[in-house]
């Protein structure tokens, strides 16, 4: 951990410049620019809402389905976008990796940071949704940053593993979209944990995102204290993934420039 902080201090400015570069460059050519960061999740929401509030009934605990869905879709979209960009980040910065010495962690981390703008924008939309559907303010909402921290730890861990592995096996970039789709369906985003048969629940909770998504819903929608057993499991799991991610990345990053 100390090592990480030291690296951060020394390379803070490069980190922000790289993140800023991604942010500035991404939508420079599109007419709608950053509106896309909001439009895409909203379109997803629209499609899923129409399908699931009419065709399949989801028990939402009295919460209108669009808000029930969006409270989970916003953090999931961030995870999915962040992991996708981070995975390709070493390869897309090949010219830097092979020419200048920088701690290689900086590339996946800056990629994740560059997605924070999208997250901020979708969060604003979520707040508007909460107002619109009359979800009142709850004290437990103040705990959302803690849940987000756990989620961020998980994202960084997974991103470090995938971005390093992608240097040696370029197939990962192709496999990961399938992997993320499967992961999404294994997580209670479009449905509710209640719909899972009791016998399968222990297996279901092995997925660290289950505890995290349910914690978000508890804190934002139901006003329930979100720190429960599944969430604690998710936190420990995420820390473990982060530690392994750093170890794995460090071990392999020596050979990045040989291979790219």
């Amino acid at each position, binding site marked *: 951990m100390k090592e990480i902080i030291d690296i951060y201090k020394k390379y803070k400015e490069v980190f922000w410049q790289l993140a800023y*570069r991604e942010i500035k460059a991404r939508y420079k050519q599109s007419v709608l620019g950053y509106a896309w960061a909001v439009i895409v999740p909203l379109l997803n929401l629209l499609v899923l809402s129409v399908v699931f509030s009419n065709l399949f009934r989801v028990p939402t605990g009295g919460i209108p389905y669009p808000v029930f869905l969006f409270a989970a879709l916003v953090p999931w979209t961030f995870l999915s976008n962040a992991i996708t960009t981070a995975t390709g980040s070493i390869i897309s910065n090949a010219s830097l990796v092979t020419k*200048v010495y920088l701690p290689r962690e900086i590339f996946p981390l800056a990629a994740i940071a560059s997605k924070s703008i999208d997250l901020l924008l979708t969060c604003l939309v979520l707040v508007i949704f909460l107002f619109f559907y009359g979800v009142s303010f709850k004290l437990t909402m103040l705990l959302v940053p803690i849940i987000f921290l756990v989620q961020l730890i998980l994202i960084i861990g997974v991103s470090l593993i995938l971005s390093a592995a992608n240097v040696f096996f370029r197939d990962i970039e192709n496999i990961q979209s399938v992997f993320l789709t499967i992961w999404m369906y294994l997580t209670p985003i479009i449905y509710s944990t209640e719909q899972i048969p009791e016998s399968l629940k222990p297996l279901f909770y092995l997925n660290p995102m289950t505890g995290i998504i349910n914690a978000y819903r508890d804190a934002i929608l139901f006003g329930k204290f979100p720190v429960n057993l599944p969430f604690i499991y998710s936190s420990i799991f995420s820390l473990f993934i982060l530690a392994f991610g750093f170890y794995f990345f460090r071990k392999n990053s020596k050979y990045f420039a040989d*291979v790219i």
Partner: protein
Amino acid sequence: MESVIEFKSISKKYKRGRRLFLKQALLDLFRPNKQEDFWALKDISFKIRKSETVGIIGDNGSGKSTILKLIAGVVAPTSGWISVNGKVSPLIELGAGFHPELTGRENIYLNGTILGLTEREIDKKFDEIVAFSELENFIDTPVKHYSSGMYMRLGFSIAISVDPDILLIDEILAVGDISFQKKCFEKIKEFKRKEKTIVIISHSMEVIRMFCEKAMLIRNGRCIGFGDTKKLVGSYIKYQDNS
């Protein structure tokens, strides 16, 4: 005098026929020994002292660029021991890390921080960088619209503004028009006056003779001579004439 760069029996092995795709990895299961090792450098030892300018000469693929990459810390040696004291500025490829969609101004800040400057230092040096690159009129244009010469000029101007202790130059002086080349040469002479340590790779023996008091001749990853520039350049030219 202290040595700024020291290599002690450095070897560097690359794996040829590396498996970048799962398909290849699976196919390779049926054909073992497909991966052959390739030794880019074998048992290289040398010392470069402060304020020396050293030219590395040799044929293509002899391992010259690998030496610079090892000094810059971009690749790790397979065996041996390296010590580098001081801030290294790699002029290995100009404009590495430029983002085509961003303007010249934005790329100066991006590339400057990558090369180790702080934002405040760049603020101070900004006008100087732009003036040296002669791109005053294009500084707010995205660099994708730059010609390759403009691209290179901007890259060079940023790289030399870093004020490094050790300057690594890989064949970049061959490009650009004559007037800009002259400017680059002047700048390198200025670095020499400031007693910086410089390592140059070039196929132009003129450039090597002009700047380097020492040279290193590399053949097939082995150092076959290190010392007086005139002698080594002479023996390199003779070797090439014979082959």
